[in-house]
C-alpha cells in the first residue's frame, strides 16, 4: 500500500482542502484576487473562492476550496512523544484513589519577591485556565495554595507540615534571573531539610524557564508557557503514583 497520501474530498487523490481566513482589506475584486493569490502560494491548485464577506469596513472573511499540490509521506512523519502519558481528571482521581489509597497533597506558591500568582493560580485554582479546571477540581488531590511572596524557609516548613507529595513553584518575574536564583535556593533548601526518600517532588513553572534545565536547577520538572493543569496533574500521577507503584 502506498505510504504517500493527499487530502481526500470525494475521490481518492483529489487533494481537496477547505480553509477560511480574514484579510485586512475592504471587500472588493482586489480582495478576492488577493485571497486566491494567497491560496495559490499555500499550494492550492485551481482554488475556488466560495465565500467572501465583509467584516466591518476594513476586513474581509473568505472560504476557499482547492486541491493541494503537496504530498505527505507517512514514513517520514516524526512524532515527539511526551515522556509521561496524559490523563483525564477522572483517570487522575481513579489512579490516586486505587493505587495510592489516600489523597495526594500538592503545595503551591510563588517564592521570593514574585507577586505574580497568575501562573500558580491558573494551575491550582478551580477556575483554571482556558476552560480547563485547576488542580483544586481534582477530588483526590489536596491542594494548599500559599499564594505570593512566600519565603523559601516558610515553603519548606509548610511542605513538611502538610506532608506534601509535590511542591509546585511558579516564577514569573525574571529580572536579573531571579527565577533561576529562587529555584536553586528552593531546591537546595529541600535537599538540606529532607533526606531523598522523603523529599516531595519539586516542580517549577514559568514562561521564561528552559524545560531542559531541571537537573541543573535541582528540581524534578520544569513546565513552561502553555502548560495546562491536566499536564501537571498527569505528570504528578505518572511520577508519584504509577512510577512508585511499579518500583
Amino acid at each position, binding site marked *: 500500500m502506498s505510504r504517500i497520501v493527499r487530502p481526500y474530498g470525494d475521490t481518492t487523490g483529489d487533494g481537496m482542502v477547505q480553509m477560511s481566513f480574514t484579510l485586512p482589506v475592504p471587500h472588493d475584486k482586489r480582495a478576492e484576487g488577493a485571497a486566491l493569490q494567497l491560496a495559490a502560494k499555500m499550494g492550492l491548485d485551481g482554488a475556488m473562492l466560495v465565500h467572501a464577506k465583509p*467584516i466591518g469596513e476594513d*476586513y474581509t*472573511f473568505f472560504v476557499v476550496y482547492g486541491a493541494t499540490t503537496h504530498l505527505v509521506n507517512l514514513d517520514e512523519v516524526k512524532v515527539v512523544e511526551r515522556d509521561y502519558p496524559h490523563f483525564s481528571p477522572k483517570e487522575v482521581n481513579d489512579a490516586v484513589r486505587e493505587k495510592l489509597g489516600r489523597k495526594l497533597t500538592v503545595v503551591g506558591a510563588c517564592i521570593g519577591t514574585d507577586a505574580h500568582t*497568575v501562573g500558580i493560580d491558573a494551575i491550582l485554582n*478551580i*477556575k483554571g485556565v482556558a*476552560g480547563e479546571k485547576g488542580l483544586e477540581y481534582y*477530588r483526590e488531590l489536596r491542594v494548599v495554595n500559599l*499564594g505570593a511572596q512566600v519565603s523559601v524557609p516558610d515553603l519548606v516548613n509548610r511542605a513538611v507540615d502538610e506532608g506534601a507529595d509535590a511542591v509546585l513553584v511558579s516564577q514569573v518575574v525574571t529580572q536579573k534571573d531571579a527565577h533561576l536564583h529562587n529555584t536553586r535556593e528552593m531546591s537546595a533548601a529541600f535537599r538540606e531539610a529532607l533526606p531523598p526518600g522523603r523529599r516531595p517532588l519539586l516542580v517549577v513553572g514559568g514562561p521564561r524557564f528552559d524545560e531542559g534545565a531541571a537537573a541543573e536547577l535541582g528540581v524534578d520538572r520544569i513546565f513552561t508557557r502553555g502548560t495546562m493543569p491536566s499536564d501537571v496533574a498527569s505528570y504528578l500521577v505518572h511520577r508519584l503514583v504509577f512510577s512508585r507503584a511499579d518500583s
Partner: protein
Amino acid sequence: MSAPHLALDPALVSRARALAARAAQPVVDLARSHTTVSVERATLRLAGLTGADPEGIPWVNRLADAVAEQVGIEHGIALPVFHALADHPDLTRLAHAAAAGGASFTLPTGPAADAARARASAAVATGFDRIDASRARRDQLVAEIGDPPQRPWIYLIVATGDIYEDIPQAQAAAKAGADVIAVIRSTGQSLLDYVPEGATREGFAGTYATGENFRLMRAALDETSREVGRYIRLTNYASGLCMPEIAALAGMHRLDMMLNDSMYGILFRDINPIRTFVDQRFSRQVHARAGIIINTGEDNYLTTADAVEAAHTVTVSQLLNERFAHEAGLPDALLGLGHAFEINPEVPESFRLELAHALLARTLFPDAPLKWMPPTKHMTGDVFRGNLLDGFFNLAGLMTGQSILLVGMMTEAVVTPWLSDRDIALQNVRYVLSACAGLAEDFHPPTGGFIANRANHVLGEAVDLLGRIVDDGLLNAIADGTFGIMKRPADGGRGLDGVARRADDYWNPATEILDLDTPRIDEEAAR
C-alpha cells in the same frame, strides 16, 4: 414582550423563597456587623482619593494601611483619616505623609470627632454626587439614543490586555450588533488586594479593571452609541478582594452592568467567606445606588459539576443571590441572574432539559433581566459542531425569553475569539433572533409534560437543598462543600486578615448613606 408560561407549583415557589430568606439572614447579619479593608478603601475612593505611589500601590491602600496599623479598622477609618486631615492640605498629601510614616492617626472624640465627621460626610457626598450624576446621564442617554430594539440584549466579550486595543474592538463589536460589551479582566486581578491605577496596556488574558480604563471605554462607547443609534452598555467585574472599590469606581464612571456574585469568590477563588459577604453587601448597595445591573455567576457551577445533576444548585444560588440583592436594595430590574446551556449534548433529550431549566429560571424570576450563558464545557476543537451547539443555545434563549444573551463562540475551546469568530457568532445570533422572533409567545409547554415536570422536579430538589442549608447554616454548607465541590471554611481563604468585627462606635459615612437608601425587608420572618 410576551413571557412564556410554565406551571410551577406555587406552594413550592413560596417555600423556596422563604427558605432562601432564612438561609441568607445569618450572613446578612454578619455582613452588617463587620467591615473590611476594601470597604474602608472604597470609602476613601468615594471621598475622591485617587492615584498611586511610584510602585503602583494606590494611595487609598497606603492611607488605609497606616490607619489600620495605628488604630485598626474596626471603628471605620473615616474618623481617624478626616481628623488627621485637619493638619494636611488634602487627602492625597495626607496619604503621602502616611506612607512616609509622617502622619499619626487617632480616634477623635467630642468636638474634634464632630468636625471630622462633618468633613468626612461632605467628602464622601461628592462621590455619591458623581454616582448620581452618572446614573442620571445614563438615563438621559438611553432616552435620547434608545435601548436595543430587541430582547435578548446581545452581550459580547473583548479581552486583549491593552485598553487601547480593546477600544476599537469594542466599537467594532457594537457596530456588528453587540448591545453590551464586557471587558474581561486580567487573570489574577481578583486576588490583588489593590486596584491598579491608570490606563493599562498589559494584562494576562484580559485587561485590568481600573478607574481610567473604565472612563476611556465608556467615553468611546458613548461615541459609538450615537453612531449605531442604541445605547451600548459596558460591563466589568466587581469581584475578588477589591469588590467594593471596583463597585465604587464603576458607579462613578458609569458602567452599566457588573459581574457580582454572592459566592463566586469564595468557591472559585478561595477568598475568605466573611470577607466576600461583607464586600458583597457594600458593592451591591453601591450598584443599587448607581442603577447598575448585576450579573451573577451561576454558570460556574455547571462547568464544575454535571449540568443535569447540579441543575438545582443553580436555582438555589439564584434564589440566594436574589435575596442578598433585595436585602442590599437592588430591585428585580437590576438583577441579572445567571444560568447556562451546559448539558452534555450526548445526553438524550438534552435540548428539552435545557428548555426546562431555562424556563424554570424565567418563570421563577419574571422581572429579572436574566443572563443566558453559552456552552463552554462541551465545546471542543470541532468548530462546526460548536457552531451548531451555539445555534441551539441561541434558540433556547429566544424560546424561553431570556434577557441578556452572552454570545457563544464556536472557537470557545480553541483560541481567544478572532475577528471572524465574532462575526460568525453574531451571524448565528442574528439568524435565530430573526427567524424565531416572537416564538416565545407560541411556546407553552403543557402542564404534566416533560418540560413542566422537569422544571418542577428541579425546583423540588432546590427546596430540599435550601432546607439542608437552613438547618446547617450557609457558612457551614459552604465549608462542607455543598456548592461546586469546594470546601471553604469560614476561617480560611484569602483576605481574612482584612476583615474586622465592627466596634460599637463604628462609623462610615458611605455605609451610613447606603443604609439609608436600603429599604429594610421582611427580616423578622427570616430569623
